[in-house]
């Protein structure tokens, strides 16, 4: 392992332990950086220590105590200082605690703005720098800097705790953490950033280690693996994808996790994972198990009613019962405000009209979709579909 990989592995863990100990995210971040800088100076010369995590924690703790000795006002607020001073010189022994779960729940606390939770997780648990987080969310560095400073100020001054919610609170709090990690994944997809999607999967693996009994954690990891398995073919619609490009190891792992996620109960991530498992395991588009997919969409729609899920269900019904049945359902959704400017809705209508041999209406729906599409790659893709329809008419 090279030095940088060690840091990637250790930074989140180190930060979580320091936050837990000092109750102060800023101080923890500063001394974590100090310790990593020290490691960058020493390790290339002295070699990587046997227990890099323990070395970093011991160093960071000493740095924290130094800083607090210099800053008495700050220190007065941290009751733990005396304990820390007496411990700072003792080397860290025994197994290192893993307190990252506390940090996950702090970063994704419901009192923080939803759009900042993924950013904080990237910064605190994935070891991203602020410019890297800004690039992930396609916002200027100064904007992201401001958002992170504001979120950290709230954590500190409103005293958002570093704690894992009690089991009775977990059903209310865990979805927020999962949503934040999933938002990193979908952000990665929207921006065509494979590294971000990989990072989201890595974070979900950490969560899965920390909460092995939570089926929705398994469901989220499964869902991301099963979607990401198709990454090399994703420029095409599912029906046109070259399935030999799919990542069979990821499919195997994701399918097993999806099964686990739906054992003894189910949540929205597990159900979405199962839908993707059926797609990934089908030899080709036509022989996909459509009745089962429709049944899963029915479950999903009950769990999380949303017009977008209704749209996907209609597309699955079109495969099970024919394009006319699908189109009838889509037309029922025409007045949904959420779908009015949603280009996949127009594209799905266009596709079904095309299949029903109504090329003029299909072309019109494709033009509407192109006008609504957000990115140029989406527009290009839709234009190719439009051209195909026009050529055949």
């Amino acid at each position, binding site marked *: 392992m090279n030095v940088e990989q060690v840091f990637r592995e250790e930074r989140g863990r180190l930060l979580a332990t320091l936050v837990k100990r000092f109750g102060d995210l800023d101080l923890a971040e500063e001394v974590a950086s100090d310790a990593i800088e020290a490691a960058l100076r020493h390790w290339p010369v002295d070699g990587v220590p046997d227990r890099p995590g323990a070395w970093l924690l011991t160093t960071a703790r000493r740095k924290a105590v130094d800083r607090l000795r210099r800053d008495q006002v700050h220190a007065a607020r941290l009751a733990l200082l005396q304990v820390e001073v007496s411990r700072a010189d003792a080397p860290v022994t025994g197994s290192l605690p893993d307190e990252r779960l506390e940090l996950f729940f702090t970063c994704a606390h419901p009192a923080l703005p939803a759009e900042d939770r993924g950013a904080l997780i990237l910064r605190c648990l994935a070891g991203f720098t602020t410019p890297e987080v800004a690039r992930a969310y396609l916002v200027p560095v100064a904007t992201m800097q401001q958002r992170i400073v504001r979120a950290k100020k709230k954590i500190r001054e409103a*005293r958002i*705790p570093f704690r894992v919610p009690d089991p009775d609170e977990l059903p209310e709090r865990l979805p927020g953490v999962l949503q934040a990690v999933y938002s990193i994944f979908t952000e990665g997809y929207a921006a065509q950033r494979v590294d971000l999607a990989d990072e989201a999967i890595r974070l979900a693996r950490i969560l899965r280690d920390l909460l092995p009994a939570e089926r929705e954690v398994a469901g989220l990891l499964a869902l991301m693996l099963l979607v990401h398995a198709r990454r090399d073919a994703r420029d095409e619609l599912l029906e046109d994808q070259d399935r030999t490009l799919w990542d069979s190891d990821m499919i195997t792992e994701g399918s097993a996790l999806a099964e686990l996620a739906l054992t003894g109960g189910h949540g929205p991530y597990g159900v979405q994972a199962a839908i993707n498992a059926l797609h990934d395991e089908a030899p080709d588009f036509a022989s996909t198990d459509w009745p089962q997919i429709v049944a899963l969409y029915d479950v999903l729609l009950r769990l999380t009613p949303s017009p977008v899920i209704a749209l996907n269900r209609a597309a699955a019904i079109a495969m099970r019962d024919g394009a006319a049945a699908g189109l009838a359902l889509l037309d029922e959704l025409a007045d949904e405000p959420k779908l009015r400017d949603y280009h996949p809705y127009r594209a799905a209508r266009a596709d079904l009209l095309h299949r029903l041999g109504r090329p003029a209406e299909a072309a019109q729906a494709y033009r509407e979709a192109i006008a609504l599409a957000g990115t140029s790659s989406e527009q290009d893709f839709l234009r190719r579909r439009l051209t195909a329809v026009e050529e055949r008419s």
Partner: protein
Amino acid sequence: MKYMLLIYAASDQQPSCTVADWIAYEKEMRGAGVLVSGHSLADLVTATTVQVGPDGRRTVTDGPFAETREVLGGYNIIDVPDLDAALEWAAKCPGSRDGGAVVVRPIAEFDF
């Protein structure tokens, strides 16, 4: 750490909670030893606003009245370990139901 719970009532909705609910809530806060102080406010029609201009002149006006949908009806100051505990007490407040809302504001602490 002290937090102020600002209790807003929806002006267009009749709350279903009773006086007994409020008494029980206060009793529970006292029992837990978290209540520092708290009051309900008299009807909004009794409110008066004072402003002093740059020339030192005082302006006194009747109101403000409910142009907004939500009206501040009372407050509690509680002393609890962290925000999660404060949110827990806010959720127990009868004023958080029936279209009402409780805003949780940490009390600023200054080092002198």
